[in-house]
């Protein structure tokens, strides 16, 4: 066996082991979702593939509709869609403003964008909470969507992307008599399409999984999103564990499917913010 082949085998085995370690929790959840919740309480989450205790009861229960799971599911879906569409449109517009023009205060404003990326959002929890309370937006989706609408990370990404778009497009648009806004809508937005895909997926993933702020804002169980709903199932009583575990499994599923279909965009979106050397 040549040296190259042995290097290949060693690397492959090494990564295969790491990969198995990383996938174990998913395997455990999948197995557990076929077992009764009381098993989970008695024996904990484990790897035992025991067909004698495994059945589809949890899945039947999940789809029986005797609980709010799918209300939460569709709330999350709705919120994610609204959040992604608004965030992308607003952030792209802002990014275009930063990339296409020289104007007074531009550098200062852009430093603000960068600073936001370094300030922990968590320290704003209390003032935002009192603000939301005072303007009467408690328990509303607007309170969740609005603060993130001009997302610093998304603006940053779009601006980086727009740097690669030739400025001649804008000049040509002006020569043809298009207005400043016409240029953006008709000439620039279409060019930005690929970057929209990456950001849609990244923002969608964040929004689907978002927990802390919605958890603080929403008080009405009918408005809960999926992560909040699942969190409320975490009580010491066995019955909920059936739904918790199968619900957790099912909450990963849509993202898994999206991920498999759009892998490239996930990975582009994730690495896009990274600084180029």
């Amino acid at each position, binding site marked *: 066996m040549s040296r190259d082949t042995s290097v290949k085998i060693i690397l*492959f085995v090494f*990564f295969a082991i*790491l*990969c198995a370690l*990383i996938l*174990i*929790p998913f395997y*455990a*959840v999948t197995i557990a979702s076929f077992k009764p919740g009381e098993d*989970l309480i*008695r024996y*904990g*989450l*484990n*790897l*035992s593939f025991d067909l004698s205790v495994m059945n589809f009861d949890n899945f039947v229960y999940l789809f029986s509709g005797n609980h709010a799971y799918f209300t939460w599911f569709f709330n999350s879906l709705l919120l994610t869609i609204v959040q992604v569409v608004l965030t992308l449109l*607003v952030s792209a*517009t*802002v990014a275009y*403003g*930063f990339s296409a*023009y020289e*104007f007074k205060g531009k550098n200062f*404003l852009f430093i603000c964008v960068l600073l*936001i990326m*370094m*300030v*922990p959002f*968590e*320290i*704003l*929890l*209390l*003032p*935002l*909470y*009192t*603000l939301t309370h005072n303007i009467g937006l408690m328990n509303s989706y607007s309170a969740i969507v609005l*603060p993130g*609408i*001009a997302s610093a990370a998304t603006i940053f990404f779009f601006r980086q992307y727009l740097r690669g778009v030739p400025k001649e497009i804008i000049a040509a648009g002006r020569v043809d008599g298009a*207005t*400043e*806004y016409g240029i953006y809508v008709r000439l620039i937005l279409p060019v930005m399409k690929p970057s929209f895909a990456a950001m849609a997926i990244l923002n969608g*993933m964040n929004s689907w*999984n978002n*927990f*802390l702020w919605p958890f603080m804002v929403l008080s009405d169980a009918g408005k809960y999103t999926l*992560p*909040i709903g699942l*969190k409320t199932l975490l009580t010491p009583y066995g019955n909920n564990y059936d739904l918790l575990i199968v619900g*957790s499994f099912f*909450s990963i599923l849509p993202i*898994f499917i999206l*991920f498999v279909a759009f892998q490239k965009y996930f990975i582009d979106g*994730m*690495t896009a*913010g990274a*600084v180029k*050397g």
Partner: protein
Amino acid sequence: MIKKFLYSQKVAPYVFVLPFILVFLFFWVYPLGSSFGMSFQKIQLGQEASWVGFSNYEKLMGDGVFLKAVTNSAVYMVLTLAVLIPFPMLFAVLINNKFMWGRDFFKSSFFFPALTSVVVAGTIFRLMFGEMEGSLINSVLAWFGIGPVKFLKGQVTGFVALVSLATWRWTGVNMLYFLAGLKNIPDEYYEAASIDGASSLQKFTRITMPLLKPTTIYVLTISIYAGLAMFIESMMLWNGNNSPKNIGLTIVGYLYRQGIEKNNLGYAAAVGIVLLAITMVINLTQLAFSGMFKKEE
């Protein structure tokens, strides 16, 4: 008239960036300012606030629970940095090797945990690190003859669970960052080094590491932020904001406890300002040391 004004090339940029200005003022400047103001007051929702000067801060300095929270957050940050920078970097270099089979599959599988919500991931880890003999981790330990460990009841073992969770979720993401950074290193450098007879280790320390510096700084910056601001992971592992003897309490957890659970808004605001100060000082020092500011055009 108004239309002509709005459509001019001088005004248009402001129209484009207006949403950011509004969000920045309304959801960042104002809350930050009010947080700062609140930290000098005794303030509870639904009651008259009173000015108390620096007393919230003075109280914080002598507050053992707060110091515990700061220590926990700092230890968590250091541990996650120690794990989540060298290993992902090494894995990225290895997986980038031309001898690698199944690169895309491994990249995807490593990244996949990042897609799960903290709620779901935290629940899974809580159950995996359960104290029963049959729980995943304990059943593995049993093979080696180690008795069931009550992971979430001890300081060290609790942190093992916390750091495992972070490692599981973020190794793949950081690896992707490093892979993106590696793409920017021209192959010629390595070829030239090979001709000069450099070993693999030399190539790694003399070419890869220095040229990956911008990526490393980026990963370091976001990891410092994420480490210091960690909260929900702990909340999920201990099923609430109360861990035995506060072994899992973090700065944000304390902010949440004081502000939301105890309605001590002024005191909690002071916690937030301290967190902001710590984050900024560490990150700016780190950026200054790594020469990031000099590089800006």
